[in-house]
């Protein structure tokens, strides 16, 4: 009986299946355990990803619990911010006087010191003189400029770098401003052509500012060009250079500094020529997002500005190789990069002016394929990276 029943079950058609076949509905097998597992795994992953992304976003947006957010943050009078609403509403010369007592600090008129006490006291009298302010270690507001809040404390922070300890947002290098400088306009206004007097004037034109001990021939004035603002750098430290594998180290003197004093600007912009010295905002822009680097990135620290064969062909005008300078209207994104085009003009196998005995872009790339390094021009940190597309294009 049992056998007969089971046989019947085996051969008996499923009435639901019959119906599906008749209606042309595709048949589906029941969900297998493996599929179920995959489904659960995918679902968990998806939910997990959503939850993590959401949480990260929330963490970024909310630093404090909601109860704290509603309360105004306590004002820290020891931390000065140019970006506070009140300070922002003031003109720069409401506090900063131009010039300060410059003869004591500089050899030119300058904004060389913190504003006078009056600049702070006229709004912040309670923070200086109330019993509450004087309690404890003294008025905290004094420590914006002074090292300690004490009546006879003369020690002060360096001007331009006030006390920012305890500031919620600490800017890179503790600077609250960045500088805007249009190289293109300045290139226009200083454009000059040194007359050719039959010698290779242009070479000595650059060298005049490069050498410490000049020959009589080189003791000519340093005419306005890049070296007016970018002085030679005797103190530059390039970390990668110390790790060079051979003795071929190039002198530091070719690398330039960036202007760090008002002297480079005030010699033209002291008065009359806008932006003038009392218009701080003409050059200094408040920032929380952008700060130009103080130290340029050196990609070819092994390049010898004095080189270029017997003719010293490397010693051309700065902008001959630093080709982006004359078109740069801002410092944002500006680098003194030298395009491979500038190098390949001479260091190229296909050109008649190729320096045959010296490296070409082609041979350097071939070298990279063998050793994984380009070290004729580049320091090891850069030379071990894959050459950019522009370099590859040079040998096509």
């Amino acid at each position, binding site marked *: 009986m049992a056998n007969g029943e089971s046989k019947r079950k085996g051969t008996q058609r499923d009435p*639901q299946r019959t*119906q*599906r076949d008749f209606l042309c*509905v595709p048949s*589906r*097998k*029941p*969900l297998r355990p493996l*599929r*179920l597992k*995959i*489904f659960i795994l*995918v*679902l968990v992953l*998806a939910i997990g*990803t959503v939850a993590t*992304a959401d949480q990260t976003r929330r963490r970024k947006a909310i630093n404090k619990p909601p109860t704290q957010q509603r309360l105004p943050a306590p004002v820290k009078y020891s931390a000065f911010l140019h970006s506070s609403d009140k300070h922002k509403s003031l003109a720069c010369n409401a506090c900063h006087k131009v010039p300060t007592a410059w*003869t004591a600090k500089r*050899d*030119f*008129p300058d904004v060389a010191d913190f504003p006078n006490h009056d600049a702070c006291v006229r709004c912040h009298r309670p923070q200086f003189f109330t019993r509450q302010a004087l309690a404890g270690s003294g008025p905290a507001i004094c420590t914006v400029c002074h090292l300690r809040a004490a009546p006879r404390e003369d020690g002060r922070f360096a001007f331009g770098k006030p006390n920012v300890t305890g500031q919620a947002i600490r800017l890179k290098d503790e600077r609250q401003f960045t500088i805007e400088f249009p190289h*293109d306009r300045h290139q*226009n*206004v*200083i*454009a*000059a*052509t*040194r007359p050719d007097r039959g010698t290779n004037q*242009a070479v000595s034109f650059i060298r005049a500012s490069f050498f410490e001990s000049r020959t009589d021939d080189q003791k000519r*004035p*340093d*005419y*306005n060009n890049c070296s007016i603002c970018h002085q030679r750098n005797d103190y530059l430290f390039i970390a990668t250079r110390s790790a060079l594998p051979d003795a071929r180290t190039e002198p530091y003197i070719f690398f330039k500094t960036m202007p760090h004093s008002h002297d480079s600007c*005030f*010699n*033209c*912009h002291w*008065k*009359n*020529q806008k932006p003038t010295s009392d218009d701080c905002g003409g050059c200094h822009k408040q920032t929380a997002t952008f700060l130009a680097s103080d130290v340029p990135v050196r990609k070819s620290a092994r390049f010898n500005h004095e080189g270029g064969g017997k003719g010293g062909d490397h010693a*051309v*005008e700065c*902008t*001959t190789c630093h*080709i982006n300078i*004359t*078109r740069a209207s801002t410092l944002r994104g500006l680098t003194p990069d030298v*395009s*491979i*085009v500038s190098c*390949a*003009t001479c260091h*190229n196998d*296909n*050109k008649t002016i190729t320096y045959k005995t010296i490296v070409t872009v082609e041979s350097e790339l071939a070298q990279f394929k063998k050793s994984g390094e380009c070290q004729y021009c580049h320091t090891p940190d850069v030379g071990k990276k894959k050459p950019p597309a522009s370099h590859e*294009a*040079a*040998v*096509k």
Partner: protein
Amino acid sequence: MKPGFEVRNSSSIIIGALILTVLLVGNLLSHAQTPDARSLGIIRLKVKYKSGGVTKELPRKRFFLIKGTLDDNRMLIDRIKQAEVISRECYYRSKGASLPLIRWLNEYDCDSVYCREIEARYLSGSDTVPEFQAAYNLGLREFKTPELARRWLTVNLSADIREGFYRQKQEVLGALVKQSEAATKTRVMSVMTDRKGTAYLTDIEPGTYTISNLVGSETGKTSILWACEKEVKAVNLAIALRPLTVSNEKDPKLKCEIVERPLPVCEK
């Protein structure tokens, strides 16, 4: 419940979850991706001019890259060809500048007094430039030290003498660039030639462009205005290194409109 509903529903959920995951992962990855590196072009510009039988390079002059062919920019080109720009010498004469100052500017082809250091020899003696001498004397009173008075001399010069000609030229150029940008809806790029008359225009979207100095460049006795057409292709360095040489001489291979005018005689 319809037959097979459970099975179909589960499959839909799997597909839905997969789509969701793909979208999420795609979204997360998109933040880490850098923009596509497009192929951009380069022009190596070389500017020369022939004067008195000698070919020279045109140093330290600004050239502009304007989107479109010469015909596309016809209005602009007609405008720059017709524009009358006063010469440097005539400008300074009209402002009552002394001859030594005009000579000082001409010697280094300077549009403003900022172009070169003002040496002590121009403050007294046979080379004296009266304008510099007067400004120096004012500086001596203000800055106390002779060296600072000399280095900061320009702050006591009048605006016209200081950079009036340069400013006037920049106003004309600014208006022309603005017109070009409005017409082409593309930012105008510019570069300055080096002492050998070479300049590189980089990161150019492939297309056809007009290269022009927009205002005639003074070259000794004449003023030369260029407007040349150039097709830019995605970079191939071998192509980029081939210079685009523009000159005041006729070149059948290059589509250029050149206007060379003698510098005007200035009224005294």
